[in-house]
C-alpha cells in the first residue's frame, strides 16, 4: 500500500485525482441519466448502453479523421448517428420486448451489446484510440493542479445536455408524452398518446445522449470496442444508488463514482481498476438488498 503513503504525502495529487474524478463523473452521470430514462419509461434495462457510448466515440473519431472539428461537429454527429441507430434497433428488436418479461429484455439487450461490440471489433479494430481536440490545458495554483480544457468543456457539455434533456422532458410536447407513458402507458394510450412512437423516441434519445457522451469521452480519454460493459455497469450502479427519475441524485452519484474510481485506480493500480468497478457493483447491490431486507421479514 505504498500508493496510499504517496497519496497522503501529496495533497495536490489528492486534489488532482478528485478534480479529474469530478470531471469524468459528469459523463458517467449523463449515460446513467439515459439508462434511467429507458428503465423508467420502457421498463427495460439496456445492457447495450455502454456500446452506445463506445460507438459515439468512434463516430467522433471518424469525423475528426475526416478533417472536421471533433468538438463542434463530432459530438453532434455522434448524437445524430446514435439517434438513428437507436431508432433502428428499436424498430427491429426492442419493440418486440417492451411489454415482455424484464429478463427477456436484459438478455436481448445483452445480445445487442455483444453484437455491437464485436461488430466494432471487426470493422474498426481492437486498438485503443483517441482524438485530440488541441485545446491545451490550464495550470492552476502555480502548476500544482493541471486540468485539460477539454475535460472542463466535456464536464459542462455533459451538464448542459443533462439539463437540456430535463427541460425537454418537462416542457416539450413529446417530453410530456414520454412522462405520461412512463406513469401509466395504458392511460396514455387511451388519451391518444402513440406509445410505440414514444418508446422509439425514448430509446433513440437515450442512444443519442450516450453517443454525445461517447464523443466527449473519446476526446478526454479514449475509446475501443470493449469499452462498453464498464459504462453499462457504471450507469446501472449510478441509477441503483440514485433511484429512477431523480436527476440531481444521478449527477451526485456520477460525480462520486468518478472520484471513487480515480482514487481506486491510483491506490490499487491500473490493473485492478476494472475489477474495482465490477466488485463495486456487487457490493452496491448486496448493500441495497441488505437495506431492503431489513424492512421486511424474510425466511432464512
Amino acid at each position, binding site marked *: 500500500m505504498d500508493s496510499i503513503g504517496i497519496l497522503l504525502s501529496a495533497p495536490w495529487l489528492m486534489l488532482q485525482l478528485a478534480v479529474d474524478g469530478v470531471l469524468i463523473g459528469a459523463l458517467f452521470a449523463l449515460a446513467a441519466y439515459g439508462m434511467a430514462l429507458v428503465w423508467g419509461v420502457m421498463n427495460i434495462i439496456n445492457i447495450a448502453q455502454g456500446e452506445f457510448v463506445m460507438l459515439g466515440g468512434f463516430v467522433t473519431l471518424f469525423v475528426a479523421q475526416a478533417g472536421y472539428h471533433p468538438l463542434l461537429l463530432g459530438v453532434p454527429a455522434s448524437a445524430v448517428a446514435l439517434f438513428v441507430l437507436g431508432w433502428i434497433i428499436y424498430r427491429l*428488436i426492442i419493440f418486440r*420486448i417492451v411489454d415482455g418479461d424484464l429478463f427477456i429484455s436484459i438478455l436481448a439487450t445483452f445480445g445487442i451489446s*455483444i453484437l455491437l461490440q464485436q461488430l466494432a471489433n471487426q470493422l474498426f479494430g481492437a486498438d485503443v484510440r483517441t482524438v485530440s481536440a488541441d485545446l491545451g490545458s490550464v495550470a492552476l495554483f502555480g502548476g500544482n493542479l493541471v486540468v485539460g480544457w477539454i475535460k472542463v468543456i466535456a464536464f459542462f457539455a455533459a451538464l448542459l445536455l443533462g439539463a437540456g434533456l430535463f427541460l425537454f422532458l418537462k416542457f416539450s410536447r413529446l417530453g410530456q408524452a414520454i412522462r405520461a407513458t412512463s406513469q401509466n402507458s395504458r392511460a396514455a394510450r387511451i388519451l391518444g398518446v402513440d406509445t410505440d412512437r414514444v418508446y422509439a423516441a425514448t430509446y433513440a434519445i437515450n442512444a443519442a445522449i450516450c453517443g454525445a457522451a461517447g464523443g466527449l469521452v473519446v476526446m478526454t480519454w479514449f475509446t475501443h470496442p470493449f469499452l462498453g460493459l464498464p459504462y453499462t455497469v457504471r450507469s446501472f450502479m449510478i441509477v441503483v444508488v440514485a433511484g429512477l427519475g431523480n436527476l440531481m441524485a444521478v449527477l451526485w452519484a456520477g460525480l462520486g463514482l468518478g472520484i471513487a474510481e480515480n482514487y481506486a485506480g491510483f491506490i490499487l493500480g491500473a*490493473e485492478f481498476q476494472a475489477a474495482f468497478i465490477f*466488485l463495486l457493483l*456487487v457490493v452496491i*447491490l448486496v448493500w441495497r*438488498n441488505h437495506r431492503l431486507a431489513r424492512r421486511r421479514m424474510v*425466511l432464512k
Partner: protein
Amino acid sequence: MKSAARIRPAAYLVLLVASLTAPLVFSNYVTQLAFLWVMVLFALTWDLLGGQMGYNSFGNIVFFGIGAYACAVVQRDWGLGYAPGLAVGMLAAAVLAVGAAAVLGAAILGLRGHYFAICTLGLGIAAGELAAGFDFIGAGSGLVTPVFPGEIDERNLVYYYLFLALAAAAFLTLRWLYSRQFGLGIRAIRDNEDKAEAMGIHTTRYKIAAWCVSAFFLGLSGAGVGNLIGFIDPRDVAFAASTFGVWMVLMAILGGSVSIWGPAIGAVVFHVTQELFWTYLLGWQRVALGLLIVVIVVFFPQGITGWLRTRWPALFGNVPVGAPGAAEGDAEAVP
C-alpha cells in the same frame, strides 16, 4: 409414434451405447466430443437456476474458473503423481466451488430478478480481472497444468470419458432433484417467490442449495477442462465470460427449459453447429453469437423443447383432456 413412456428406455440405451462408442468411431474428433459433454454440463447447470428457478445467472462461469485454478494449484504444489494429483485436485475444485457458491449465494441470492442477473454479470468479469492480477495463480500470464503421462490420444480419451461421466452424473442428479420436493420448491420460487416464501418454503436455503449443486459440477468440469487444454488463461479459459459464460446461457435458452432434456438438446445443437460452421465465419463468430442471442431470445424464447411441446404435447405427458386418443396417449391423435 409410440408413447413417450414406451420409447424412453430404448432411447436411453441407444444414447448410452452411442456416447460410449462415439470416440472410437470418430477418433479424430475426441476433443470436440469431450467438449460436447462439457457444454451439456454447462447448459444443465445453468438451467437449474436460470430455467427451473428463474434466477438468471451470468456468473456461473466463476465456479468453473475456481475449479480450474484449484485443481491446477493442487497439482502444481502438492507434488502428488498425475492421477492422484488430478483426483485430489478435482476434490479441491469441487469443495472450493461449492464453498464459493455457499458464500456468494448467501450474499447475493437475496437479490431478485434483474438485480441478480446484473450482479452476477459483474461477478463473472470481476473474477477474471482479479485472477489476472493475482500472482499466486500466475496472474495474466496464466497457469500451465501438468503434462499427461502418455499419448495425446490416450489423454483425450480419458478426458472424454471423464466429461461423459460428469455430464451423466449431472443429468441424473438434476433429474432426481427435480422429481423431489426440491424441484417443486425451486419451481415455486420461479413462479412466485413471495408466495413460495409465504407458504413456508425456505427460499434462501433452496436457492443456495441449487447454486451449490450447480457449482459442484461446474467446479469439477473446470478442473477437467484446465487439464485437457493444458493451459489456464484467466480471461479466456477459466473466467471466459465472453465464450463459455455466454454459451451456457445461450444453449440453455436454445434448448428451452420445459424438461431436463431441453438444455442437453440445446447444448448438442449449439456445439455441433459451432464445430461444423464456426470456422467458416473467419473471425465473425462472436458477431454471430450476439446475433444468435438476439434472434433466439426475441423470436424463439420457448426454445426447442418448448416448440416440441406445442407441436407434440404427448411427448411431455401433457395430453389435452378430451382429445381423441387421449387415453392411449398417442401423440399422432392429438391435433
